């Protein structure tokens, strides 16, 4: 008897009904009504005597082969809440696959599963897998998938579903089934498929991985039909896994690259702006080489860690755009926002930041792929030269072209320019130190003091900031290794921070790095259960809270409306503050299995508490320090 027959037998046995023939006649409504909805695992089903010769077990299933494919792809982890629609592959991962590569990571919210994958991929350079129900799980996961889409990060999402309506268990399995599971996220995923056979699964699984890993990277979705997972496979069935070759990222056209080099060398005040430029650890070195060859200033917008923060050519803290006669934008999503300023008053307005005649060059894989519905692509930017290419892949040839083009005369100009920029960046650091000294002893703790205290505890470790900056980390800390920062959420979907930090820490764990998370309070309240995931899986992560007891960004928006309407500001906090009662994040974290301290309001107590937490993290466990901070 095949599994279809087994299921039909089992459910009918629960109703003490006569066994239905394998090829059933269409049932009348009355006949359907005669078979009450009985869960397959009911006591009656458990105790009923199975028909003679009924086969109830199998040594090999479709989901075993799926695990073979996932191993071939190289997924190291699967993040998931358990869900019955993927129970087959869940069991295959932990038993058939030995729960190693991939290893199952127990999550408490599907949004956390995806956001963990988001953070993990930005450190490790490849996706992990996520299992979720095709319905309720994906609905939870959707915002995190959108964040990854906006941030151009690959996440490999696999959804359980039961397509065959005649095989669904009555009750919840119907509510957990859907005609087109991936439809809900198709506007913000790069590709999806619903394989109908195991060979189809193998091909689509590899295709999905290739597509996710080709710039512009993005999440992909595979729908795993429950029948396909649970179907018995004979030991003699041979299924092939196709070869996997990840496409080389698209490099800029050679003539266009030569023209970019010519313009850069000729410019008097070139500025390089980098956002989601750095995909791999090699990217920073390429950008440093380009900047140093030209002695050009670099603005790193923070989508990734593109350039060392203390490099003499880092002009991120200066107003370099206004002085530029040439702007080279590397994977900048909002280029319009770089070259214009926007004023959010009763009548919204904007004006250019650049001077007339400034040339703008763009190199981005974003020009290769765009969708219509969601508007994360930002306003149309006027550029003089656009290369539809991956910026990191293009930079080595651009550096070579610049070196070939630069004459001795131009190099002397470059040196003079670089000396001035170095003076300016040194002065900017001094200004930052001075500004940080204001309200140094204030309570609540200033965000500058928070970052300075944290820096004091980690600067001699092999650290990596995996979430948050409190505004001050890039101004006060020296980031000089490519893995030391991974940018933000991409879509500004709140709730990214904590799970992305745990996912990134999971990736850093194998490298022995101290993962540091500057955790905002509102973000943590979306899905704090991810702290338990960190504790359960012994994921070392230092979380220091920037706790301003509000959804503060939104609070400022509401206040703006209060001011605009002159109806008083004192009620503007309603709906945005997290007070009365204050949330005790240390107790929350302790309850989830973490070493935790706080709330700390005296700045003198911050450093010692962080030191104790660092000691815990260095033992391989997560820890949290709750610091009550100034708003911003």
């Amino acid at each position, binding site marked *: 008897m095949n599994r279809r027959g087994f299921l039909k037998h089992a459910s009918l046995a629960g109703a003490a009904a006569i066994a239905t023939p394998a090829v059933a006649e269409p049932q009348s409504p009355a006949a359907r009504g005669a078979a009450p909805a009985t869960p397959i695992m009911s006591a009656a089903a458990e105790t009923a005597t199975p028909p003679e010769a009924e086969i109830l077990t199998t040594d090999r299933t479709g989901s075993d082969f799926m695990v073979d494919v996932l191993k071939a792809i190289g997924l190291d982890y699967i993040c998931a809440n358990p869900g019955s629609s993927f129970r087959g592959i869940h069991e295959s991962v932990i038993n058939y696959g030995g729960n190693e590569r991939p290893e199952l990571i127990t999550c408490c919210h599907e949004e956390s599963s995806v956001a963990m994958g988001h953070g993990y991929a930005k450190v490790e350079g490849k996706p992990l897998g996520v299992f979720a129900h095709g319905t309720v799980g994906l609905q939870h996961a959707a915002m995190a998938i959108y964040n990854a889409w906006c941030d151009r990060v690959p996440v490999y999402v696999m959804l359980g579903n039961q397509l065959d309506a005649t095989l669904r268990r009555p009750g919840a399995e119907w509510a957990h089934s859907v005609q087109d599971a991936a439809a809900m996220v198709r506007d913000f995923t790069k590709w999806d498929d619903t394989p109908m056979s195991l060979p189809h699964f193998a091909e689509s699984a590899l295709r999905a991985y290739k597509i996710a890993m080709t710039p512009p990277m993005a999440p992909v979705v595979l729908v795993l039909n429950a029948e396909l997972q649970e179907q018995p496979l004979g030991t003699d069935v041979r299924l092939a896994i196709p070869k996997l070759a990840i496409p080389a990222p698209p490099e800029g056209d050679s003539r266009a690259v030569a023209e970019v080099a010519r313009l850069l060398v000729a410019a008097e005040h070139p500025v390089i702006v980098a956002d989601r430029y750095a995909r791999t650890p090699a990217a920073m070195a390429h950008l440093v080489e380009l900047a140093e060859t030209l002695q050009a200033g670099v603005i790193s917008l923070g989508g990734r860690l593109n350039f060392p923060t203390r490099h003499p050519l880092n002009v991120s803290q200066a107003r370099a755009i206004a002085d530029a006669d040439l702007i080279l934008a590397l994977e900048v999503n909002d280029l319009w926002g770089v070259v214009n300023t926007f004023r959010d008053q009763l009548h919204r307005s904007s004006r250019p930041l650049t001077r007339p005649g400034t040339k703008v060059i763009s190199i981005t894989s974003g020009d290769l792929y765009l969708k219509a519905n969601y508007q994360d692509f930002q306003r149309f930017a006027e550029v003089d030269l656009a290369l539809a290419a991956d910026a990191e892949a293009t930079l080595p040839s651009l550096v070579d072209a610049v070196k070939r083009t630069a004459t001795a005369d131009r190099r002397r100009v470059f040196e003079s320019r670089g000396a001035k920029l170095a003076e300016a960046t040194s002065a900017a650091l001094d200004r930052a130190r001075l500004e940080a000294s204001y309200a140094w002893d204030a309570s609540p703790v200033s965000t500058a003091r928070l970052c300075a205290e944290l820096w004091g505890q980690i600067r001699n470790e092999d650290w990596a900031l995996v979430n948050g900056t409190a505004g001050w980390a890039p101004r006060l800390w020296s980031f000089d290794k490519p893995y030391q920062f991974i940018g933000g959420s991409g879509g500004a979907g709140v709730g990214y921070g904590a799970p992305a930090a745990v996912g990134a820490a999971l990736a850093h764990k194998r490298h022995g790095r101290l993962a540091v998370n500057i955790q905002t309070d509102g973000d943590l309240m979306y899905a704090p259960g991810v702290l338990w995931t960190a504790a359960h899986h012994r994921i070392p992560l230092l979380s220091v809270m920037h706790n301003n007891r509000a959804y503060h960004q939104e609070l400022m928006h509401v206040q703006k409306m209060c001011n605009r309407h002159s109806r008083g*500001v004192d009620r503007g*906090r309603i709906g945005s503050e997290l007070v009365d009662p204050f949330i005790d994040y240390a107790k929350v974290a302790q309850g989830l299995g973490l070493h935790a301290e706080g709330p700390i309001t005296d700045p003198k107590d911050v450093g010692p508490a962080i030191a104790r937490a660092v000691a815990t993290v260095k033992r391989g466990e997560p820890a949290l320090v709750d610091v009550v901070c100034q708003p911003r």
Partner: protein
Amino acid sequence: MTLTVAVHTQSPSPAQPAAAAPPGDAERGKALFVKNGCYQCHNYEGHGGAAGARIAPNPLPFRAFVAYVRAPRGDMPPYTATVMAEQDLADVYAYLRSRPRPADVSRIPLLAR
């Protein structure tokens, strides 16, 4: 959050004659500073942050301060006299001027280069 943090601080202004500002009650000003949400961008000490300029302990001269609050040039929300009367602004101004100056930065080891 980006790695580019635009913190536009006011240049330290020259010594401002106290007579330029009407008398203000710093304690009342502190309460108004919170009640009217000034702290949301400028923080409780007026020391500025990611969203607003540092405005303490040396704010603009009082008349310029009032003019800016009533009709900001940037993104700051405007405060009409209905929301904050002139005396309210004078009290806030007194509060800002009462904020302590920071210690010499060279004496703060955590801020060493």
